[in-house]
Every structure is written in structure tokens, then in C-alpha cells.
């Protein structure tokens, strides 16, 4: 099973290494979101600094929507998904392999977004451990949720418009908890940062559990 997961993950990362869609298209889009937010807040530095935690997660969430769509688009073309299943790969291995690859890509997006925040909004990190832990849990949760919804909408004619509608509200718990944890890590709030990170972990575990149960039904019918 783990070998199959690693196979799919490596395949997706190889496709990404060759096409560079995350680096050339998704990362610039996410950075553009940060810049556009600066316009929306009238380039007010104190306001942007206070909302930096939320901006990070909103930007990464949009990146995850694009990444999830891309992840399953490459399988929908030419019936690749059927070919993978006919090749003897289990639905769970396909889903988790893709989720793992998407998590790696989202981690790259998160790093660029965080660098963008530091450069554009002059934010300072006060608790690195909290920041990194929350970022790891949050991006992994986005990746799993994104893959579940990507699998759910793969092959549908209205997938382009339906995926954001389905994914963004459902990812709200990650957005909320991640923002709170980041506010503490960036020193803009005196809240319980680790409690929010624990909530992120709970949401992540829930997504993992649903993913295990749902991989078969989703990919058998895709």
C-alpha cells in the first residue's frame, strides 16, 4: 500500500517538476492575492499586519483550490484514472498518493506566501514552532480536503465552478483555526495558539478518517 502511495505521489511530483504549474501559475496567483488585498485595505500597514494571519490562510486556500483542480485534471484527460485503477492500484493509494503530492506542493505555496507576507506586510514571527506546526497541519488538511473534493468533481462538466463552491466553505474550520494560531505566532493576538493548533489537528484527523472511508466510493464512481 505504502509503495503504491509513494508511486502515485512521485508520479504527480514528476508531472509538476516537468510542467511547473505550481511554481509558474499557482504561486504567482497566490502572491497576487496578497497584493490585491493590500489594495483592498488601502495599503494601511497596521491593518495589513493585523490581518496577515488571515491573509496567509485565505491565499493558501485559493492555492489549494487551484492545486486540487489541477491534480485531478491531469487524471481526467485520456482516462488516466481508469488506467491507474486497471493497473491494479487501490483507490485509497491513488487518493493518498495524490494528497501527499498536493501537500508537498501546498507546502511550497505556503513558504512563498509566508515570504510574501514578511516582505510585503513587514510581519515579524514571535513563535516559529507554533507557526510551522500550524502551517503543516493546515496545509495537509487543505491537501486532503482538496483531493477529496477533486475526486468528487473529477469528470463533471461543471467541475470548474463547482469545486470552489464545495471546497471553500468546508475548509472554513482550517481557515478559522489556522488564522487564530497564526495571529498568536505573529504576535498580533494573545489567544491560546496551541489550542487552535490542536483544533487544526482534530480537523486533519477527521479529514484523514473520512478520506480512508471515502476513497473507494469516490474513485470507483469517478
Amino acid at each position, binding site marked *: 500500500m505504502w509503495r503504491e502511495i509513494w508511486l502515485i505521489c512521485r508520479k504527480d511530483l514528476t508531472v509538476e517538476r516537468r510542467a511547473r504549474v505550481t511554481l509558474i501559475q499557482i504561486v504567482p496567483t497566490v502572491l497576487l492575492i496578497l497584493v490585491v488585498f493590500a489594495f483592498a485595505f488601502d495599503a494601511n500597514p497596521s491593518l495589513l499586519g493585523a490581518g496577515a494571519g488571515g491573509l496567509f490562510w485565505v491565499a493558501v486556500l485559493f492555492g489549494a483550490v487551484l492545486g486540487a483542480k489541477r491534480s485531478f485534471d491531469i487524471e481526467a484527460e485520456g482516462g488516466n484514472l481508469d488506467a491507474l485503477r486497471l493497473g491494479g492500484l487501490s483507490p485509497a493509494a491513488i487518493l493518498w498518493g495524490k494528497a501527499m503530492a498536493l501537500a508537498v506542493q501546498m507546502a511550497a505555496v505556503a513558504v512563498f506566501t509566508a515570504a510574501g507576507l514578511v516582505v510585503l506586510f513587514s510581519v515579524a514571527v514571535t513563535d516559529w514552532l507554533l507557526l510551522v506546526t500550524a502551517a503543516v497541519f493546515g496545509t495537509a488538511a487543505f491537501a486532503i*480536503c482538496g483531493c*477529496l*473534493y477533486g475526486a*468528487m468533481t473529477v469528470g*463533471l462538466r*461543471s467541475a470548474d465552478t*463547482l469545486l470552489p*463552491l*464545495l471546497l*471553500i*466553505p*468546508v475548509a*472554513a*474550520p482550517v481557515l*478559522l483555526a489556522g488564522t487564530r494560531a497564526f495571529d498568536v505566532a505573529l504576535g498580533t493576538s494573545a489567544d491560546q495558539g496551541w489550542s487552535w493548533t490542536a483544533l487544526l489537528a482534530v*480537523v486533519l484527523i*477527521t*479529514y484523514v478518517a*473520512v478520506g480512508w*472511508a*471515502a476513497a*473507494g*466510493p*469516490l474513485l*470507483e*464512481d469517478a
Partner: protein
Amino acid sequence: MTGSVATRVLGAIGLAAAVVMAILALWVSPADAVQGDAVRLMYVHVPSIWVAYGGFVLTAFASARVLWRTRSGAGGTEGVIADRQARHWDRVAGAAAELGVMFTGLTLVTGSLWGKVTWGTYWQWDARLTTTVLLFVTYLGYLALRRLPAESRARARRSAVMALIAVVNLPIVHYSVDWWRTLHQEASLEIGIGGDRNYSGEMYWTLLYSWATFTLIALWIGIHRYRVLRLEELAEEAALEELLSQRRSEPRHDEPVTDR
């Protein structure tokens, strides 16, 4: 077409209960010392969200049953029974989600009206309000997914997975007033041993009565929606049968056409 003796009786009881609820809420229950008459909106607002929560929990439960009954492997008679049960639970999930969305919408509307009277604005970016809107949009998405044209088994399983993910938002909405500093007041009732009541006397009992009334009405609507969904399925199957029989009655191209 979807009515029966039981649903007609249930509907009549629900209607009578709603009339009594209106009397209790508008005349018997006193005005609040702080909120004045605006508190009366609570008798619609709070039961609506309770019924909506119930609808979403039922959707998740029914969805789990759908996934359970559609596990691959069952064949023959057992497979037919499993398929029939999965269709039943899928209809339950659909009807319950529609009820949840409808009552969440009602909660948002009554909450907005209450906010205008109490806060001076229809909308505040408050944690409870924002998370409730997200819940509403989540299940609108669920209903959109259900309406996409697809083979019924695939659609049922896909929707079931989404319902199980979406239900994670419920505790977030409910506990948002405790987790964040919000304008929204804390939970209206803590029912059970040692629970604190934010309301007492006539207000408390009117609220409980309103909840029972809303539950009755929701049950009545839900049964009818379930039956409508069943009729839609039958209509689809009948239309498909009709098309198939038309196709079968067409002359085959490989048969020689002979003059008689």
C-alpha cells in the same frame, strides 16, 4: 399525491401547534427587560437553527448508511436489497439537507431582523453569523452536487462523502460563541442537570414549545419531500422505460425490409 392519513393528521397537529405557538410567543410570553419585543423573534430564530442542526445530523447519519449499504461485493438478492436501502437513505439525506438549508436560511433572516432592531444593523462580521453563513453555503453546495446529472448510485455515494465532511462544521458553528469574543449571545438554553438558563419562566417554556412545534412541522415537510424525491425517481425510471420500449419497437437495421 404525497399525502396520507398519517401526514394529514401530522400536518393538522403542526398547524394547530403553530397557532398556539404564535399566541404564546406574541401575547403570553413577556417582553424582555433589555431587548423589549425583539426577543419574540427568538421563538422562531432559535428553534429554526436547532431543527437545521437536526437535519444536518440526520443527513450525515443517512449518508453513512448510504456508504455502508453501497459497499461493493453484495450481489443477487442481497445486492438488490442493499441497493433499495441505499436509495432510501439517500432520499432521507436529501430531504433532511433541504430542511436544514431551509431552516438555516430562516435563522439567518430572523437573526438579521433581530440584529437591525438590537444592534442597529442587519449584519455584523461576528463569528456565529459568519460560521452560520458558511454552513448554509456548504449545504447549498451539497444540494448543488446532488442535482448534477449522474448515475444514481455514483451520485448518492459522492453526496454521502460530502455530507460526512460538511457535518464537521456543525460543532464549529455551535461553539463559535464560546471560542470567540462575539456580539452574538451565548447558547440560549443549556438543557440538562446543572445547565444554566439564559431565560426562565414563560420564556423558557415558550422556547421549548416552539422547538417542539418546529420539529413537528419539519417532520411533516420532510416526509413530503422524501415522497417527492421517490416520485421523481419513479418518474425518471418510467421515462427511461418508455424510451427503451420505443427504441425496441423501432425496426432493426440488420433486418431485411420486405414488401407485403
